[in-house]
């Protein structure tokens, strides 16, 4: 009998001539593996669970998506109505609350919900519904849906969840005894005494397991597509089919990765029971424990200032520069009107309109621009810190294939971090272009003084059509693929390491 290492090497060296034989052996082993797995109780139970839960998951996702879409349509209709009204004809650049003449709603960038979020929810509900652009800077709208509730354990029930949790579980349940079981039964010795290389045996098992796992996966995605159609989300018409196919492929890679891990552990240990315990612990840690723990470690190690800190800081800075501007304006006002108290009223304003506009307005405009700049810097700094924190968290999560899959799936669906970053970038670019076209040199300024406020008209206000329009980020299949490549690459790396580890462990296994 040759040694294990020789065995592997000879398989490699035999090359072309021996390949047909090795291939047919692999095929036989794979076929036997598939037949055995498909008829096993565990496969039937978990596969039925996944296939049964798929319509439910899609129903939840489709319902959430449709309610977000309704909100979106309502907001768009409201905006269209306002654009047709006085606010659309004259954009004054004021920062006022809800009204017919609301400039904010006219310049609003409304985020359409992502149709694929019916399958992979990701951050789609946790992102703002819209962003407003004002003289103060970017104002973030409310979140698209409610935050996490008490009873929810690990995120939402969606396709990514079913793949990550339930099918991941199936992968290790199928793999834990693939080698260790045969070791215990003694059949492995019998098989290895045949003219079959160990590499071929493991390859056959891997191929068989992969095919077994891909069956429920394909069924689940098919059912998901059909039920999405039934529940009123037309993924094919939305041009999302390519994204769904990529999602399914990534999920397949993830399952193969877990199956390879199972084979690796199964080859390493001698009893099935140990193999099951080790794999379940790895599964719990990788799938359920690592994501929240990594998030929290990142939060502690690379903190982001809280909302209340940012608001207080903004208030303090604003108050500071506002006070300076007011002192200056008050002095000028007193000088022009000769009023010792510095009280303003409309009569006095219109009597001295020209000199007030010439001297006071630049101070007010200077204050507005400076305030926008300062507030914007604070927000950008907080965003940068949040992005750093996320980078750190995803670095920590790189130890878990499940987290890598979750990242890849949300990015592919267009509901992940990358999509959020792309939105923020578009929004910021739009604010910059609006600054240049409107806010830096405002057509109208509201001068506030004790008991009175009056608008100073500086130039003819532009119409909405005169202003640049908002360009939302790309969300086609090519764009999402390029955003999710790092996570997919990581998943591939894991699979490779587990397969090589499995071959190595198996080749060193002593059959006696």
């Amino acid at each position, binding site marked *: 009998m040759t040694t294990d290492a020789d065995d592997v090497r000879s398989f490699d060296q035999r090359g072309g001539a021996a390949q047909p034989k090795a291939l047919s052996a692999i095929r036989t082993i794979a076929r036997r593996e598939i037949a055995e797995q498909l008829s096993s109780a565990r496969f039937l139970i978990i596969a039925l669970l996944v296939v049964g839960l798929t319509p*439910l998951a899609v129903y939840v996702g489709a319902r959430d998506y449709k309610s977000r879409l309704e909100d979106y349509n309502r907001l768009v209709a409201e905006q269209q109505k306002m654009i047709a009204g006085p606010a659309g004809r004259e954009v004054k650049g004021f920062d006022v609350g809800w*009204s017919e003449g609301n400039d904010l709603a006219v310049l609003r960038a409304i985020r359409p919900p992502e149709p694929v979020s019916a399958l992979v929810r990701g951050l789609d509900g946790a992102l703002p519904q819209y962003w407003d652009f004002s003289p103060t800077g970017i104002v973030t709208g*409310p979140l698209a849906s409610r935050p996490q509730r*008490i*009873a929810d354990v690990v995120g939402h029930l969606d396709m990514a969840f079913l793949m990550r949790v339930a099918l991941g579980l199936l992968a290790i349940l199928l793999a834990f005894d693939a080698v260790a079981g045969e070791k215990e039964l003694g059949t492995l010795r019998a098989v290895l005494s045949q003219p079959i290389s160990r590499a071929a045996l493991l390859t056959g098992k891997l191929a068989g397991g992969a095919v077994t796992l891909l069956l429920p996966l394909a069924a689940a995605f098919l059912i998901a597509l059909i039920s999405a159609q039934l529940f009123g989300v037309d993924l094919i018409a939305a041009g999302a089919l390519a994204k769904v196919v990529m999602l399914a492929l990534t999920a397949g890679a993830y399952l193969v990765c877990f199956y390879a891990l199972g084979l690796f552990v199964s080859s390493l240990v001698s009893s099935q029971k140990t193999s099951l315990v080790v794999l*379940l612990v790895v599964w*719990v840690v990788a799938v359920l424990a690592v994501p929240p723990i990594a998030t929290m470690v990142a939060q502690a190690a690379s903190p982001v200032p809280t909302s209340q800190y940012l608001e207080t800081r903004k208030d303090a800075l604003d108050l500071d520069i506002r006070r300076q501007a007011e002192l200056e304006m008050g002095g000028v006002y007193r000088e022009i009107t000769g009023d010792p*108290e510095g009280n303003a009223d409309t009569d006095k304003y219109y009597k001295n309109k020209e000199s007030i506009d010439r001297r006071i307005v630049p101070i007010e405009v200077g204050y507005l621009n400076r305030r926008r700049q300062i507030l914007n810097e604070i927000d950008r700094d907080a965003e940068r810190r949040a992005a750093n924190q*996320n980078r750190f968290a995803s670095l920590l999560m790189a130890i878990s294939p499940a987290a890598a899959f979750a990242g890849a799936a949300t990015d592919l669906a267009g509901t992940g971090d990358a999509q959020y970053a792309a939105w923020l970038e578009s929004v910021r670019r739009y604010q910059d272009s609006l600054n240049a076209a409107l806010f830096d040199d405002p057509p109208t300024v509201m001068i506030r003084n004790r008991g009175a406020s009056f608008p100073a008209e500086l130039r003819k206000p532009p119409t909405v059509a005169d202003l640049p329009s908002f360009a939302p980020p790309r969300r086609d299949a090519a764009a999402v693929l390029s955003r999710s490549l790092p996570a997919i690459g990581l998943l591939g790396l894991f699979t490779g390491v587990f397969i090589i580890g499995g071959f190595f462990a198996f080749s060193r296994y002593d059959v006696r």
Partner: protein
Amino acid sequence: MDILTSDSRLQTPDSRLSRNWMVWCFTAPVRGAVVFVDVAMGWPVIRRAKASDSQVWIIAEKEIAENVRNFKIPAAFSLLTVLILMSFFLMSLDYQKRLDNWSTNRAAQSDKLFSGITSNYRSADNQMTMTASSVQSEPLIRKPMMMSVMAKGLDSLMERSVTIGEHASVPPAVGFTFGASQERNRNVMTAAAPDLLFMIKIIVSLLALFFAYDAIAGEKEMGTLKAMLSGPVRRRTVLIGKWIGASLSLAVPFLMAALIGLVYLRLVRGFSFEGAEWMRVALIFAASILYGLVFISLGLLISARSATRKQSIAVALACWVLLVLVLPNVTTLVTERLRPLPTVTEHNISVIPLARQIESEVAASGSEEGFEFPGYGIHHQSAAPKIRQIARQADNDHIARKLDRDRLARTLARFSPAGAFSYAVTDLAGTGLGEFQSYIGKLQRGRDRQIELADEKQNTISINIANEAEQKKANEKLAEFFEKAKQLNRDLYESLVVMRSPQEAIGDALPDLAALAAWSALMLMMAALAFNRADVR
């Protein structure tokens, strides 16, 4: 009773010294607990000394010894210890951070610039002043709960900043508005907190199934069950014995790990719980064990119905996914379906037409002239109290519907052990639905006081000022009202620090604990039925 003299049964011929030592280490507390439970609960049994009862304990002890020998108990203990320590470490850091955030807010509350009303200031040389036309106050933040290190629950909802003042969309109306979540990172916002509740919900249930899945199926497979049942042992005895054995195998390592966690919290992180808080902690642990028992019984049920261990583990894991991960999601979904609610934005906008109608009624009566309000339209002074009333009513209705939905969600959550457990533990920790309702109630009362004050102010201070003296008097009155508004704000702030009493929290958690106990009993009964009908051939 031969429990204390049963050492010979614990040793297998091939056991080495180290293994013996480990077995002793882990069985000592278990055996102590067995004796304790035996004495405490089984005193009549001992008195009667019925053969079947001592058989229960023999089977239980065998089960425990087996679990020690095949490393299930040591593995469970290490996993639980590592995860609980990690959870306490991270959650206490998080709590510290949130506490710091609250202290900053507290400092800001007592700061001259930010306390109460910010817009009513007069610059140093009296050149340019702004006047406050309304009550505006610095946002309040509720103090984070210390027990949130165990279950964060709704704490992050309750520590958003909240402002009581004029509605953004309907200015004369007074209401409370929540600020954004304190957490800025959206990934953190949507992720589950790795608190003790999370760890127990996932790990304890999984371990329970792991202790129970092969208890019967394994013996079936090996054929030992047949041998055992052919002797003078009742099936009931076997099942109860296995149940006690599996329960103790889970409960003892869990309690040891939890105690280590508590010692760590106390000594390293400096958390000191006081009288009532210890009761909360003890009840949380009791609830956790009750939750574990549900899954032990479920595991036995599955084990009794399965022919092989492999089938048993697959069914057990599928059930686990359904009960722990899927069912709680489904109950919240059903609630949303049964009690649809408008979003906050929709609700806020819904008040506008009502306000406009009141304004136009006042305008039609022609009794007073209105004035332009930026972003609002023409506003009439005498319409304000009415608008405040309808906005208040609309807010209260909205809140009542929301809380009603939350209560329904809670009732439905009892249909899953994980849901009932989550609600029970968050209530016990003071971060649950009961505390949230009382928090909202405090805000509502605070708002009502501010509305009363706003009405009073409007009746006291006339806007038609004829001369300097009247102006001066009005200014003085105005300053007085601002002081009152500030005081109301301060009172509310202090009331937010006060937590509900442990009695109330326990009262809230009781139905959920009862639901857990019912789940456990139901599963055990079903397991007994299934085992009685099991075919051992």
